[in-house]
């Protein structure tokens, strides 16, 4: 996704005046934290299987001699104060890039305690959540040849956390849809489709019921679509979408949608290609990028059992390497991961095998060693 980091710089006042009514783009991009040729990346281990997977990522990076240093920031989900998450946000502002595990939200706490993950996304304005679901060789699934890119609006919609109780026993929750953010995410989706050579974008909505809210979203998508004539655009109602996904998922190419439908569709697609342990996710904003597992699970029940599937987190770290333009390392590690996936005897429990996390990581390291660049001389 390197196109996102290529921000057009304004060369003249005329250009600025010409473009000022279009989708606002930041003129100044802060430089990446790269000193002495080494990048610094924020690492937030999170809860559940997060810490062990973060450890494996660091182990693998050290083994492959990747020039990335991790600044670890722990966020304690049980603490009521928001200091921890604010520290993490500051660290991400400093470094520009982060790798993150999911932070648990105890939903029995009172509403004043906001979801930490949600806070992070909205404060840093990581407006696009991108999940690329692809059928992987060697993983047995009911459907084959799936290749769907899901682009989900990440900051507004149903996740606005604006709720109130006007009358005892009657709770209202607000879903906010704005024109600016809808235009922004639609533009992102079409740019991504163009950059990756994809031909079709489908907007997922429920505008027949929520006429104003999803109607606005759909209008914005149509408006942006008119600027990309080579990409075909259509729309589909969310319940029909889920039905089509379980019967014929091969028909979809790029899908763009508001927040909640994105949650449902991305989880359905992740399940279709093999489960939460295989798909990485990326959250992009204008200035920052945060990488994590696609389905954002804490995996509390399998924490510290050495049975978690590290593939999702490791593929997320490859996306991170691509983002900081270390493409050679990214492809090397990705190749090693894919060759390990095809070996069914090393599949972890979620894929129906009996391999352990450490075995999988060891196998990836062996694959890197056998196929990676050799040291020329000491």
């Amino acid at each position, binding site marked *: 996704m390197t196109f996102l980091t290529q921000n057009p710089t304004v060369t003249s006042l005329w250009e600025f005046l010409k473009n000022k009514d279009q989708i606002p783009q930041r003129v100044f991009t802060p430089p990446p934290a790269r000193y002495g040729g080494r990048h610094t990346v924020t690492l937030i281990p999170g809860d559940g299987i997060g810490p062990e997977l973060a450890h494996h990522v660091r182990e693998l990076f050290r083994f492959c001699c990747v020039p990335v240093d991790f600044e670890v920031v722990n966020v304690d989900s049980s603490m009521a104060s928001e200091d921890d998450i604010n520290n993490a946000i500051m660290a991400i502002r400093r470094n520009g890039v982060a790798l993150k595990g999911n932070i648990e*939200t105890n*939903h029995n*706490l009172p*509403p004043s*305690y906001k*979801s930490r993950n*949600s806070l992070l996304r909205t404060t840093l304005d990581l407006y696009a959540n991108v999940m690329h679901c692809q059928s992987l060789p060697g993983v047995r699934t*009911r459907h084959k040849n799936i290749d769907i890119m899901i682009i989900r609006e990440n900051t507004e919609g*149903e*996740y606005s*956390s604006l*709720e*109130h*109780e*006007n*009358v*005892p*026993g*009657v*709770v*209202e*929750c*607000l*879903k*906010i*849809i*704005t*024109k*600016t953010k809808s235009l922004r995410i639609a533009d992102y989706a079409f740019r991504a489709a163009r950059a990756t050579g994809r031909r079709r974008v489908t907007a997922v909505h*429920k505008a027949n*019921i*929520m*006429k*104003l*809210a999803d109607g*606005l979203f759909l209008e914005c998508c149509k408006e942006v679509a008119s600027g990309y004539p080579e990409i075909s655009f259509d729309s589909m109602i*969310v*319940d*029909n979408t*889920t*039905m*089509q*996904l*379980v*019967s014929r998922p091969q028909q979809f190419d790029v899908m763009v949608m508001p927040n*909640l*439908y994105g*949650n*449902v569709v*991305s*989880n*359905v697609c*992740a*399940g*279709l290609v093999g*489960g*939460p342990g295989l798909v990485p996710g990326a959250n992009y904003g204008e200035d920052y990028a945060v990488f994590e597992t696609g*389905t*954002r*699970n804490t995996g509390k029940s399998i924490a510290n059992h050495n049975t978690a599937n590290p593939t999702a987190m490791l593929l997320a770290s490859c996306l991170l390497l691509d983002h900081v333009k270390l493409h050679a390392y990214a492809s090397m590690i990705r190749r090693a991961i894919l060759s390990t996936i095809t070996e069914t005897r090393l599949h972890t429990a979620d894929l129906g095998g009996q391999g352990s996390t450490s075995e999988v990581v060891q196998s990836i390291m062996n694959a890197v060693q056998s196929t990676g660049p050799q040291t020329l001389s000491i």
Partner: protein
Amino acid sequence: MSAAPICFSQFTSHPYTVSWAVGAVKKGTPQARTFTRGIQTVTLIPGDGIGPEISTAVMKIFEAAEAPIQWEERNVTAIQGPGGKWMIPPDAKESMDRNKIGLKGPLKTPIAAGHPSMNLLLRKTFDLYANVRPCVSIEGYKTPYSDVNLVTIRENTEGEYSGIEHVIVDGVVQSIKLITEQASQRIADYAFEYARNNQRASVTAVHKANIMRMSDGLFLRKCREAAEKHKDVKFTEMYLDTVCLNMVQDPTQFDVLVMPNLYGDILSDLCAGLIGGLGVTPSGNIGANGVAIFESVHGTAPDIAGKDMANPTALLLSAVMMLRHMGLHGHAKKIEAACFDTIRDEKVRTKDLGGNSKCSEFTEAICQRVRDMQ
């Protein structure tokens, strides 16, 4: 901008008890109001498009099975009552109020007719608060998923579909999701009653309380309270995204799912997709005062209307659900078995099931099987 007045007027007028609506029927005690010579009268709404043909098919099959059902056909096209308010025709309303049980085919919503969708009108008129969709894999109709056997129970009156939307300023729209204590309690109680009456082992509440803390939190609290009252049924709660993830990997782990409106809409259609689509999925709407309307949820299919190509399976399975609701389990089992056997046999199947028989041939095959079973 306050939505409170709408809520209270909806819920203070009907005193209801779920146990009467469901329990009394399940115990097999006859409904006094429709008891004439042991035959129960049911309001039939054929609907539009392929509606009339599939309704005829269902009537024929019921006749062959000698089910004690008498049909009263009604039309529910909206008319404008005094004061300009759109409502269903009074004879249809009176028939439903008398018979309490209805079977409905697909209804079309004309775009520029000026009136709201008929389904919405029916829902408001009879306060159909629960939408029940049992999804069972059909042997003989292969899908990538086998052994699906779950029920989705969806709250049908409020939630995200309240239709309360405002433009705050130009370019900012808010849509209000309404969750009330009464509606949540009603649907939770219904879910547990259903589980108990249909020998289902567990009920799972589907929610997103980590994000929508107050609204889904209220819904969850009411489900927990209902679980306390029904200790014989196991209760679990699961996030919506986890349910979706697990549903497409292993649907056998789910039993009864209860949830608010939007999640229910998405999940019930997802489960319908697992078993083969809307053309084979039954559905029932339970209302206050013991009213229950069973329907087929597919569209009117105007392109094949009148050509004897329609598949009556969805309406037939909904009618079977209706028989079970009325306590006529023997007839229900017979008709359902005949239908599944015919599909499994693969000789006589309609086009959407992969064959090329006509609707009438398919119906006749089922009738023949039913007669052979007598």
